[in-house]
């Protein structure tokens, strides 16, 4: 069976892929006022401030952690700077129990859900309180409690997984959907295409949220794809799509709210492309001065999404300079103090090397752990993170797994 209702034409007519472009949905101007004809989404004061606080927290966290990385306290960091409205605005439009499957730059979404400063720090320092047990690089957060899937570094792998997860949600009939975030770079991976295709074929309640921030490390979007962004790809799959100004928190919020409604009420997958800019370096290992101009960055700094939202809040008299100052100070102190404590916490126990590989460690793994313990007992000074934890005589075979 073919799936097209194509009619015949009798001259060779090539449709042009470059003939259309997709509009951008925007509500809020940089001065905090609404565009003419635009209506702000329903957003009460409490929720608006929760969003705003999270944006400021994320910015403060980014600044402090980058500084900590520069001081050698932290091995690695990735900032969300410039993309706070896209990430937090969308997360705020979801139900707190919808699943989030993020790429890596979405700490704002996790913070919005209530991941504490301490929880962030424990992951970054890979200490014994890190839910991921010190196995992944900083910023690879996860929280089952907050419905935030643990980050995986291989790009785009979460996108088809989101389709599958959401299909399960549909079968479970629990009224929830999944949102998956990714960059315009990751959208080049085969996984992205597989995910969209399966989502429309199987009518899955999933939101594909592309943060088009202009760069994949040093590669500008024009070298990533020839098309008008990522959004037009939805047509190929017969998927609903919207492009929004990703620095406009109100537009992002409203678009995601509507996408969620389509997903949950009609099992319609939706693609959202948020146009934004990665203001910071790709990561703490990157130096963007090698591939883009300060001038270009400055132009985007003028479009700061946090400032835009702040002005809107002020125009409604929901926010003031004093409150801003107090918030900034409180968050700075919180981040610094929490960091100090987390940094000093011990490493995960040696057994964590062999747990979670399987539900229970294999005999080989237990043997390997035993041999390692014996070795560390022989050279305690060479393995300072573990030597104090290895008992001087007995070895610990792991039989069951403590879990979360």
């Amino acid at each position, binding site marked *: 069976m073919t799936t097209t209702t194509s009619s015949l034409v009798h001259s060779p007519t090539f449709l042009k892929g470059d003939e259309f472009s997709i509009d951008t949905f925007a509500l809020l101007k940089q001065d905090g006022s609404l565009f003419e004809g635009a209506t702000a989404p329903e957003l009460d004061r409490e929720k608006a401030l929760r969003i705003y606080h999270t944006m400021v927290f994320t910015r403060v966290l980014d600044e402090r952690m980058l500084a900590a990385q520069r001081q050698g306290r932290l*091995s*690695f960091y990735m900032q969300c700077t410039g993309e706070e409205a896209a990430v937090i605005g969308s997360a705020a439009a979801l139900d707190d129990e919808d699943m989030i499957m993020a790429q890596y730059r979405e700490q704002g979404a996790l913070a919005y859900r209530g991941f504490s400063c301490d929880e962030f720090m424990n992951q970054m320092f*890979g*200490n014994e309180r890190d839910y991921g047990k*010190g*196995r*992944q*690089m900083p910023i*690879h957060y996860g929280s089952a409690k907050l419905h935030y899937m643990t980050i*995986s*570094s*291989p*790009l785009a792998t979460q996108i088809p997984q989101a389709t599958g997860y959401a299909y399960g949600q549909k079968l479970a009939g629990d009224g929830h959907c999944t949102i998956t975030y990714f960059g315009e*770079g*990751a959208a*080049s*991976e*085969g*996984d992205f295409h597989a995910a969209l295709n399966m989502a429309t074929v199987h009518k899955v309640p999933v939101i594909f949220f592309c943060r088009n921030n202009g760069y*994949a*490390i*040093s*590669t500008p979007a024009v*070298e*990533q*794809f020839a098309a008008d962004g990522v959004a037009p790809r939805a047509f190929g799959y017969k998927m609903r799509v919207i492009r929004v100004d990703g620095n406009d928190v109100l537009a992002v919020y409203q678009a995601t709210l509507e996408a969620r409604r389509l997903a949950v009420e009609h099992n319609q997958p939706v693609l959202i492309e948020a146009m934004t800019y990665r203001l910071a370096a790709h990561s703490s*290992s*990157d130096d963007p001065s*090698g*591939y883009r101009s300060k001038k270009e960055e400055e132009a985007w700094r003028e479009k700061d999404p946090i400032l835009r939202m702040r002005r809107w809040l002020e125009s409604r008299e929901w926010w003031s300079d004093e409150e801003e100052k107090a918030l900034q100070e409180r968050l700075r102190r919180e981040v610094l103090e929490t960091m100090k404590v987390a940094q000093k916490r011990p*490493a*995960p126990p*040696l057994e*964590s*090397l*062999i747990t979670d*590989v399987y539900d229970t460690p*294999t005999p*080989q*793994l237990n043997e*390997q*752990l035993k041999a*390692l313990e014996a*070795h*560390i007992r*022989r*050279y305690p000074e*060479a*393995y300072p*993170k*573990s030597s104090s934890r290895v008992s001087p005589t007995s070895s610990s075979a792991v039989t069951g797994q403590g879990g979360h």
Partner: protein
Amino acid sequence: MANLNLLQAINQALDIAMAADEKVLCFGEDVGGFGGVFRATSHLQEKYGKARCFNTPLVEQGIIGFANGLAAQGSTPVAEIQFADYIFPAFDQIVNESAKFRYRSGNLFNVGGLTIRAPYGGGIAGGLYHSQSPEAYFAHTPGLKIVVPRNPHQAKGLLLAAIRDPNPVLFFEPKRLYRASTGEVPESDYQLPLGEAEVIKEGSDITLLAWGAQVEVMEQAAELAEKEGISCEIIDLRSILPWDAETVATSVLKTGRLVISHEAPLTGGFAGEIAATIQERCFLYLESPISRVTGMDTPFPLTLEKEYLPDRLKVFEAIKASMAY
């Protein structure tokens, strides 16, 4: 001769290969203007233009599929995979296509011009996904060559040989050594043979075998052992596929003992293959079981990376155990 680090040596090899043959192209994620995230391809785009050195979209299966096509056409693609951990999206293109192009077509077509470069290995606080050593997966695939340099001099000579070898070659670069390893590198265009191990230090009591970043660990362990009067012969395997069983067996026939080390997990690691072969060839000469010092059978950890990695102390203990057997 100039003192270069490993990255600079790789850059020089690429530069020489591109200057000598206009069919040589290099591409991959961030490879173009920026010169790659590690800067291995710096300035090549300036010199050879965007048609021959460029950024690709972020899709490894696309990069290698594209490179397979290019190579089949008669070009000499040198594709970069940003980290060896991200070679797996291209696994199908490498294992089912690159490796089998010549065989399945009865040599009507081949992708012999293909070289794939990828930084591999741990020791850089990279955790699960920036530390893997995937050579064993590919070593199970007839039709590929796999090469791992240990220092700048080798990196240049082996990479030039890999690019010019008429077979698809995977070239795994020990990223921990990118800037850490420096040495004298001839300016000239030279090649080192693929498929040949190098005896880097002669000794009589025990043979130590490794490749890439692990060779340095062997050297450190040998120093400890020599202080106890144990004479170590050290071999750098250099090529994982095909591998030089002859050189290793000759050494083991002399010393009667063998310790092999790699960072990848023990089970199914390439040391297992070597141990089986050497045991076959040298059984009556072995004074002790062949010993493997490797990563554990777990994914690569972060905080406990030091505990996980085979280091000089673990190798030293293996040497002593072998001597005392």
